[in-house]
């Protein structure tokens, strides 16, 4: 070791750590426990927040609607002018007008061998196709009837169109691209939780969902406009029923939670055809993605000031609950770490008492007070870093164990995640920084005492 001495204070720190390893391990134990709890709870909070506020109730997504009740009975329209105003707001990242299918319709299709029949009137929404920008499914989620690629030649004599993405329409005997449909995960959970058990159908589990994702476009169904299971319709439709073929292109959080979502052009044309021109002047709502969740309050204030409302969302309530629980966990972790810092302080006071003579020697050969402080604080920082790293490893290991046990033994439940935890680099670095800072704080007074030792007295001890 002495063959090539590279003198630095850190070499002394290293040597001191080595010879006091056992003591430092014991005194760092509290930091290990505190940091592992800190990482575990914050990781859990991040994971739960991601699922609840990312998948179930996206917190930075707000839906602007016309007021449900007004004094005059008249309400401000949700129209293109409002869409333009919303898009001009500084808080807004994107805004998508939403138009609901407002007349009776029904869907028929096949899912894993089961024939499904479901009402669509009021449960099918049109959204701007730019909604899926950046998503692989964006290639398919288009208003094909408005695109050249969506129009093909006449059907062949057998009534086929060559590609399974196209179907032969009985309306004009031309090949049309299937209507692209996206659904939210809520629909899978709704199907699994209510529909499938009530009808004795197989649940869509992880395997089925994976298969569904792989063969998404094989999920095809028919949309019958102007038809309904309701025998006595209150609406009087002048237009005769017609059928369109559709295919599933994505399961995504961007779809409206309940029902099917299709490009808005289809809904606009269908509403116009069955309900007239008035029906397409207004949207049912505007779905707004904000630039950050911190902008929610400002934007909602503006919405209310403009005379509109925010569609009821549980996101804020859940966010509040998660924040409170997270804060509680953080406080518990910090109390543990704080107590450990006191323990670190005791350890260093003891060490300094043991090392008085040594400190005197260092001062005699030229160590300044600042050098002595640096040595003590350097040791504390190293203990913090080591204990923090160990705490992070333990916290992550505990999380992985829980994920493993959950995936292995806990039955599926709505929105069951593959992991309950989210460990970001910021969390890991923050935890390490906490450990170092608390240890250094713990050693601060001992370091000051060591630095202020009178060298002559220290040598005489």
């Amino acid at each position, binding site marked *: 070791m002495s063959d090539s*001495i590279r*003198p630095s204070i850190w070499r002394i720190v290293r040597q001191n750590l080595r010879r006091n390893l056992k003591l430092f391990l014991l005194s760092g134990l509290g930091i290990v426990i505190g940091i592992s709890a800190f990482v575990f709870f914050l990781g859990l909070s991040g994971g739960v927040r991601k699922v609840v506020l990312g998948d179930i109730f996206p917190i930075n997504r707000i839906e602007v609607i016309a007021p449900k009740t007004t004094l005059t009975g008249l309400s401000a329209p949700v129209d293109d002018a409002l869409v333009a105003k919303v898009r001009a707001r500084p808080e807004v990242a994107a805004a998508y007008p939403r138009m609901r299918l407002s007349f009776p319709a029904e869907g028929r299709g096949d899912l894993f061998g089961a024939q499904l029949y479901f009402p669509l009137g009021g449960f099918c929404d049109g959204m701007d196709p730019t909604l899926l920008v950046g998503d692989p499914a964006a290639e398919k989620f288009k208003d094909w009837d408005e695109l050249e690629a969506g129009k093909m030649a006449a059907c062949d004599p057998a009534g086929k169109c060559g590609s399974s993405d196209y179907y032969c329409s009985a309306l004009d005997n031309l090949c049309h691209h299937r209507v692209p449909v996206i659904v939210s995960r809520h629909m899978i959970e709704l199907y699994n939780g209510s529909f499938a058990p009530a009808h004795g159908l197989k649940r869509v589990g992880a395997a089925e969902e994976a298969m569904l994702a792989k063969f998404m476009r094989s999920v095809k169904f028919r949309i019958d406009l102007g038809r309904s299971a309701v025998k006595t319709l209150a609406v009087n439709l002048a237009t005769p029923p017609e059928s369109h073929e559709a295919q599933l292109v994505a399961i995504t959080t961007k779809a409206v939670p309940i029902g099917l979502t299709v490009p808005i052009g289809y809904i606009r044309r269908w509403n116009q055809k069955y309900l007239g021109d008035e029906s397409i002047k207004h949207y049912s709502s505007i779905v707004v993605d904000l630039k950050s969740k911190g902008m929610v309050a400002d934007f909602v204030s503006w919405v209310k000031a403009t005379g509109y409302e925010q569609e009821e969302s549980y996101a804020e309530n859940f966010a509040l609950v998660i924040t409170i629980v997270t804060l509680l966990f953080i406080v518990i972790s910090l109390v543990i770490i704080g107590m450990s810092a006191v323990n670190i302080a005791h350890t260093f006071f003891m060490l300094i008492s043991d090392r008085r*003579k040594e400190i005197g*020697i*260092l*001062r005699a*050969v030229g160590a300044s007070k600042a*050098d002595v402080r640096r040595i003590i604080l350097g040791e504390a920082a190293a203990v913090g870093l080591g204990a923090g790293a160990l705490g992070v490893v333990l916290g992550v290991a505990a999380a992985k164990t829980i994920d493993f046990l959950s995936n292995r033994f806990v039955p599926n439940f709505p929105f069951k995640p593959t992991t309950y935890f989210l460990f970001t680099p910021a969390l890991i670095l923050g935890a390490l920084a906490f450990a170092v800072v608390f240890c250094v704080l713990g050693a601060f007074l001992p370091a000051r005492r060591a630095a202020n030792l009178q060298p*002559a007295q220290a040598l005489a001890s």
Partner: protein
Amino acid sequence: MSAVEPIIKLVDIKKTYGQGKGRQDVLRGVSLDVARGDMVALVGQSGSGKSTLLNIVGGLDTADSGTVVVDGNDYRKLDDQKQSRLRNERIGFIFQAFHLLEHLSVLENVALPAFFADRSSNVNDRARAALDRVGLADYAERRPGMLSGGQKQRVAIARALFNHPILLLCDEPTGNLDSETGRGVIELFQELNREGLTLLIVTHEERVSQAAKHVMRIADGLLVDQDSRSVELSTPAHVRTGT
């Protein structure tokens, strides 16, 4: 006072320990000059204040009042950083109890001042050269615990010489050594002094004071006597008793 500025200049140094009934006036106004290249033995009974005086000269202790100037540096004007640098670069210490760090090798102990120097080059070579100077080149990798008392003291001397100081402050350097080993250390001191190093040695051993160029005696916190063998002085009192 000689035309050359003294390497150590103390003016009216006072030092008290404790308060009230436990108050002890260790130094009661000591003034002295030590010329460059001198070898001075500071003698006196236990508790006379000689070690305290040495520590004050070395900056290991502070005087309650008075002026300490070492190598032209007035301690009142030096902050801790500058005083530490002065100790590191210009002053070497040798103690009765050796004060080596047991967890470091002999070579690392010798090179210890380099850990706090602003710039350190050839640390290894310089540490080995210092060890060679005290005849312990072969002991570089050993731990202090494996050495005899005499060898430990020579390691401490090597450490003190590592940065080529101009002043060596020694506190009972032969106090823990047998006569044979002690004689070797004294001879080494004389050799270093001949090379120009200034030595201030606190001792109660006659053989050490006899080896010094002159002797100062301290009693009850005052300098009371000086040896007639002292070098020629330019001032009436090279050593002045306190006022």
